[in-house]
């Protein structure tokens, strides 16, 4: 059966199975702890802003974006209107446009319902984990959904805890849980950094992030750095051949 060896690289076969979902769910568990702590913080903020437990949990389950929710709840307390709140969410979530675009070659191969369900629970940490898993040969697109759920559920759980009984819990900053995503990004970036070809996108992103952060520190730094890195990789692609 020597001719059976002629198999294509895994990139072309994409599945969406319970096994892939479980793999994704398990891989995101360490990050889920940080999400839970952040959720508690949001729950506390929401309670201080006058949101009921139900309202806070509903917001976490529908808007599902830490920075955007903190900003809009703060805005609500200050009397911000619906248009200002929507603009805030669009600005703080602009990075997801890039995340979704990068998932297209993989997630675009499964039925739309599965793809959009996965996108509904997409977050920073699980996007990074998924892209890393994909680069390492993961073919099952349910990995994205599973790792997303692993962070979506503690976000809602944390919100409930925070708005019910937030005072019972120590400040997450004392446990440095606010540093967890940054720590994961730093470690994964070092792990992902493989060849000289990565030097250009990484150093461009670093430079652009420094400038953006210096000019106007905001959620935009991530988007601008990500797009700058992608553009450099696009422009330099022929050199790699």
């Amino acid at each position, binding site marked *: 059966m020597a001719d059976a060896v002629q198999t294509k690289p895994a990139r072309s076969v994409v599945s969406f199975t319970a096994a892939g979902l479980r793999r994704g769910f398990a891989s995101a568990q360490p990050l889920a702890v940080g999400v839970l702590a952040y959720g508690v913080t949001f729950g506390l903020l929401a309670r201080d802003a006058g949101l*009921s437990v139900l*309202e806070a949990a509903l917001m976490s389950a*529908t808007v599902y974006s830490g920075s955007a929710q903190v900003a809009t709840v703060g805005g609500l307390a200050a009397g911000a209107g*619906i248009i200002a709140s929507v603009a805030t969410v669009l600005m703080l979530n602009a990075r997801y446009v890039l995340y979704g675009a*990068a998932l297209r070659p993989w997630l675009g191969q499964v039925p739309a319902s599965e793809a959009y369900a996965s996108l509904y629970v997409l977050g920073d940490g699980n996007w990074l984990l998924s892209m890393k898993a994909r680069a390492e040969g993961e073919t099952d697109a349910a990995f994205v959904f599973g790792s997303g759920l692993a962070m979506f559920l503690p976000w809602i759980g944390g919100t409930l805890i925070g708005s019910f009984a937030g005072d019972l819990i120590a400040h997450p900053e*004392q446990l440095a849980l606010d540093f967890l995503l940054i720590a994961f990004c730093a470690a*994964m970036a070092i792990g992902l950094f493989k060849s000289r070809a990565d030097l250009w996108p990484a150093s461009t*992103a670093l430079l652009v992030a420094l400038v953006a952060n210096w000019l106007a520190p905001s959620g935009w730094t991530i988007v601008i*750095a990500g797009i700058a890195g992608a553009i450099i990789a696009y422009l330099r692609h022929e050199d790699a051949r």
Partner: protein
Amino acid sequence: MTLRPDLLPLLLALTLASFACRAGGFWLMRFVIVTPRMQAALDAAPLAVMVGIVTPAAARGNPPELLGLVVIAAVMRLTRSDLVASLAGVATVALARWSLRVY
């Protein structure tokens, strides 16, 4: 357990805005042919985003975070495990904040 009806239009608008961001890039890529060059750009995005997340934290120049990043780099070199390295980094930051009375 109350739900103010006047909050619902706002929540609906925010939900749509949030999902539009999540689904928008994915949907738009329907109309883009992913050439190898485009694939290279998309593949470079995660590393660039990670740099974009870490850089502002480092640029703030707080000793606990800087120390944490150094520990992550060192542990990553030793163990090649991003889980071990990042937990070591978080523990370092927690200890440094505690000993420096930052929080």
